[in-house]
């Protein structure tokens, strides 16, 4: 067992998977000597060489297209998109192409590739280093989308993603990279895609969150406990496929649901979670399905005051908890 940050867990897992399987390669911008701008691939080029740790030209579409081609020809590429905000040129190769390889070839070809995407705000990233981009991928049949929030989950889910025989979009919240620490077993383990986890049990209401918001929700739940409100916190961990049963089980038990996300609320993960609760928990609900998210403006202002006003926070979540608990 070793205490690690999220970024340390990511790096150690890539290293372990590259040692385990020689078909695992890494490609992306600055992943070689620089070790990635967040150091997720730090030192890997020294151990595995530039054949397996490939510094690409600055061209996101081809990073993903090349990963896809290598994947259908026997490799297990891990492509790194430097910032989620830069993934848009590659959308066609991921949403348009990779998601349909198995289906469009009637199962003859598969694309075992992982695309690591650092996302999210609260890092003074402004409009182009703060974006949450999960919705478009989570909307796409044929892709899996995972968004771990802890070092333990990052390791287990990244190992699974790399070993999965289909494309996986692996979302890493930048703010959690060095903020969140936790014990990570040194031994090999995996966490299945599509399984949420109760990170804190409670009885009065359920908060459903992922990524950075999971940690803010846990902080808010602690504060609410001091006021006598028992909050359960469910970490989605996977955004496609959503763990519908876990959502339904928790909300049916507590009777109230608060969905917290950093991404724009309209047509989002929270919309889908709310729909699931509405369809399957209707008779167990003791209050309105509630959502907390940022305002409907382009995410997110660079100014520190505006950025803080934009982001959900433990205090804002506590206010939402209190309001919902009183109903």
């Amino acid at each position, binding site marked *: 067992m070793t205490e690690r940050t999220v970024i340390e867990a990511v790096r150690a897992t890539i290293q372990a998977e590259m040692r385990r399987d020689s078909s695992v390669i890494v490609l992306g911008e600055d992943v070689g000597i620089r070790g990635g701008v967040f150091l997720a691939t730090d030192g890997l080029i020294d151990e595995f060489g530039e054949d397996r740790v490939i510094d690409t030209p600055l*061209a996101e579409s081809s990073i993903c*297209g090349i990963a*896809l081609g290598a994947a259908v020809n026997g490799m297990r590429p891990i492509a790194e998109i430097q910032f989620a905000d830069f993934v848009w040129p590659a959308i*066609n190769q991921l949403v348009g192409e990779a998601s349909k390889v198995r289906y*469009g*070839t*009637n*199962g003859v070809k598969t694309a075992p590739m992982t695309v690591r995407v650092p996302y999210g705000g609260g890092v003074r990233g402004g409009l182009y280093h703060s974006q949450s981009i999960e919705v478009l991928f989570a909307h796409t049949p044929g892709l899996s989308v995972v968004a771990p929030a802890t070092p333990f989950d990052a390791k287990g889910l990244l190992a699974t993603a790399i*070993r999965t025989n289909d494309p996986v979009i692996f979302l890493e919240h930048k703010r959690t990279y060095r903020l969140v620490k936790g014990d990570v077993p040194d031994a090999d383990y995996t966490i299945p895609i599509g399984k949420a986890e109760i990170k804190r049990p409670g009885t009065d209401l359920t908060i459903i969150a992922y990524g950075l918001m999971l940690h803010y929700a846990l902080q808010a739940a602690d504060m609410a406990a001091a006021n006598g409100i028992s909050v359960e916190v469910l970490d989605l961990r996977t955004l496609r496929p959503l763990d519908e049963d876990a959502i339904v089980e928790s909300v049916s038990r507590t009777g109230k649901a608060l969905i917290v996300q950093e991404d724009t609320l309209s047509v989002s993960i929270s919309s889908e979670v709310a729909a699931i609760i509405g369809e399957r928990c209707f008779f167990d609900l003791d209050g309105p399905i509630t959502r907390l998210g940022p305002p409907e403006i382009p995410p997110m202002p660079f100014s520190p005051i505006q950025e803080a006003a934009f982001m959900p926070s433990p205090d804002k979540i506590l206010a939402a908890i209190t309001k919902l608990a009183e109903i």
Partner: protein
Amino acid sequence: MVLSRHLDERVWLLNRQGKAAIAASAQGHEAAQLACIEATDPSKDHYLIYYRQFAAMMALGTEPEEMLRGFLAKTDDPMSGARQFPLHGAHPRVDLFNFSNVIATQLPQAAGVALADKLKGSDAVTVVFFGDGASSQGDTHEAMNFAGIHKLPVIFFCENNRYAISVPLEKQMGVESVASRAVGYGFPGVQVDGTDVGAVYEVTNVAIERARAGDGPTLIEASVERLLPHTTDDDHTRYRSSEDIVQMLNRDPIRILAELLKRRGQLTDSGDEEIHALAKKRVNLATDTVDAEPYPSVESMFDHVIDSSGGHS
């Protein structure tokens, strides 16, 4: 070549009969496709094709019945189980695939396939086909740039028929040729008459040897004619002049090859007629067979979305 032509013509007839929903023809492109494939080794090479690769599919041993199952969307379509447009999916016997209709996406994918071969130490070559229209896409630039950097064993084979649906070459590029762009990527670019099977075979052979030797990519630009409109849903008289159409018909590669062989005394008129008659008979047989076959079941549309076993390596 003749069989491909007759089957291609039949598919257009089947479209007019309401049986084939859509077709894009290779008529005019056959010599380029067949001669290129002839220089490769289907037992180990990779082929990333695009929607006009009818003759290339035939050259790689696809049976007429298999071709028609795609066009008629029948259950045994070997490429995609009739999920995709004809010629899209993956070939059951050779490593040929064509994931999408989005133009030029196959070029970065080809660079990735070739990268994997290089890492594996294989001497397989990846041949990626595209049209002049695809040469305008950013993916084309990105793929050639990467392939040039890593000297990947890939052949970029451009079938330039001078039209991106209706947009003529002079509105697609400010340079004389697609091949001239290769200099910007650090590998050779060659132009070849795509109606000349011998010439296409020769330049492809040189490119194959270069790629197998580890010397990197080649961009081949074969000038061809698109004898029919873009697809069965297009009408090229809206944008091609009658002079252009007459001139284009003079570059029919099948007629050119037949005339060459006759001049050399390697083909007689009766021999030529016999080849066409045999091809037509084969096409009739395939049409009757496939026309009677069933469509896929509704249930099968749920197969192969993701690994149903949840299988991991």
